[in-house]
């Protein structure tokens, strides 16, 4: 039986991945040191920590901060973006101030926020909001600005009311851009939650990893890094799935494949 081209490619994909994992396995087996842990130890530490002993004590707080912060950023960012996109006056007034705030490297916000809000949940959530809101605002506002003016005019000529135009024309029209902003923001949100837990934490996955590192428990540290990687991967997958469902009518979803 001859394999088709796509089957061969799939085989290549699987085999190389197996080789990569095996290579890492062998390398860590022989070179385990103060920074590199043997893979079986990491897996064991992973199982001990995350299945499911520390899920409620560390994973849950991290996800809670992330989801609440991201949620507030979306709820505030989309309307703000719609407003900025439809008012040139507002946009010009806020542009330099916004650019300045947005350009502050996100993590540099942590020290002032620690002074203002302490090291609790409030600080971490506020940090996520104040950083994650900008990609959403900018993408939404750009989406509104670049929105097809013919479509806008047509909707007006057909006598759609303001509210109907917003609901049926503008919001669907800017959705692809909004999603682009959401993806950027979600990746940022994870980075910020982790960084704030490293720097000023009492619980959470970031705190857990930092603790493991400080006590030179390398296997546990790697288990934590592995979990953070998995969380990043899953979040990205979830938002892609969500985007595909919400934008199934949009042309870009069909051409990409």
């Amino acid at each position, binding site marked *: 039986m001859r394999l088709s081209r796509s089957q061969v*490619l*799939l085989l*290549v*994909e699987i*085999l*190389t*991945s197996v080789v*990569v994992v095996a290579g890492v396995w062998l390398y860590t087996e022989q070179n385990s040191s*103060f*920074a590199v842990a043997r893979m079986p130890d990491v897996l064991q530490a992973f199982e001990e920590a995350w299945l499911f002993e520390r899920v409620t004590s560390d994973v849950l707080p991290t996800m809670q901060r992330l989801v609440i912060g991201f949620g507030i950023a979306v709820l505030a960012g989309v309307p703000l973006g719609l407003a900025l996109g*439809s*008012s*040139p*006056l507002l946009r*010009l*007034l*806020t*542009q*330099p*101030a916004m650019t*300045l705030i*947005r*350009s*502050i*490297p*996100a*993590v*540099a916000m*942590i*020290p*002032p926020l*620690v*002074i*203002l809000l302490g090291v609790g949940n409030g600080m971490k959530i506020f940090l996520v909001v104040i950083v994650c809101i900008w990609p959403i605002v900018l993408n939404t506002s750009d989406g509104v600005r670049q929105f097809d*003016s013919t479509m*806008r*005019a047509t909707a*007006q000529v057909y006598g759609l009311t303001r509210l109907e135009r917003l609901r049926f024309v503008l919001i669907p029209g800017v959705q692809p851009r909004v999603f*682009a902003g959401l993806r950027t923001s979600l*990746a940022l949100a994870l*980075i910020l939650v*982790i*960084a704030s837990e*490293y*720097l000023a934490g009492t619980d959470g996955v970031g705190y857990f*990893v*930092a603790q*493991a*590192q400080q006590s*030179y428990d*390398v296997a546990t*540290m790697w288990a*934590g*890094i592995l979990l*953070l*990687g998995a969380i*990043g*991967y899953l*979040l*990205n997958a979830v938002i892609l799935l969500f985007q595909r469902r919400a934008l199934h009518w949009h042309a870009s979803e069909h051409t990409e494949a």
Partner: protein
Amino acid sequence: MVIMSMHQESPRLAGDVHEEQHESRLVPGPRIAPAPLTQRRWAPVVLGVTGLVTLAVIWEAGVRAEVLPPADIPRPLEVASALGGLLGENDFWTALGQTFIGAGTGLAIATAVALVAGVAMGASEVLRRAFRPTVEFLRPVPGLTLIPLAILLWGPSTGSTIFLVAFGCTWPLLVQTMAGVSSADQVGLMAARSYGLGVFARIRWVIIPSALPYVMTGLRICASIALIVAIGGELIVGTPGVGSMIRQAQQALKLDDMYALVLASGVLGIATTLGFERAERFVLRWRSYGEEGSQ
């Protein structure tokens, strides 16, 4: 009239105004109403400054009225003078240089790795498929998660920053390069081959021109990632640089300095973005106006 009422509703494109003014000069006719406030040439500057000043006034008023805690937030003028003081200090410029070297070296390493791997994976479907799962798994891992590893390997030295930046920047750039190379015009490639162009000539004249816009966009994105990761790494690991200066100011409760440094890092962010935007426009100046580099 219809046109006028529509203009109030929807922002016009900048191009429209010029056309209109142009016409009104050439063709004598009924006077056209002056362009709205927001389309004057001075509007961005004047309105932007107004916005910034308003923000500063709100800040000042907030602190005076004690809506914002005066103990925790210095006034805008105090921060401005602290910023002025910093600009005269050698320590600040040294820290700035250290941050730049860390971020720049990391970005350079990431670029070298991403370009080689990206061109190879973009050109060969077998290679692309072979390493797709690995790349897709490593790509969403936030660069800062590796901070503990960096601490163990390099401690608070520039090595940590370079490592973190290189890891954080490689993936986005690799994906951009790959997309750029595989977007190369297939007909163009075949034509080049029929004309007897060798591999290098084909890379130089067909693949690079189509991949370059993608690579430049990737570089611009990565430059801001590099800055975030570098300053974040300095802040958490304690590597010398602007990040650790912020941390020290916080711990010494020199709040004026801390806010001034945070603002300065914002200006640094703007400068980086602007610099890479200009470089992008310069490198891609041969492209026709209006084409957009893909994300």
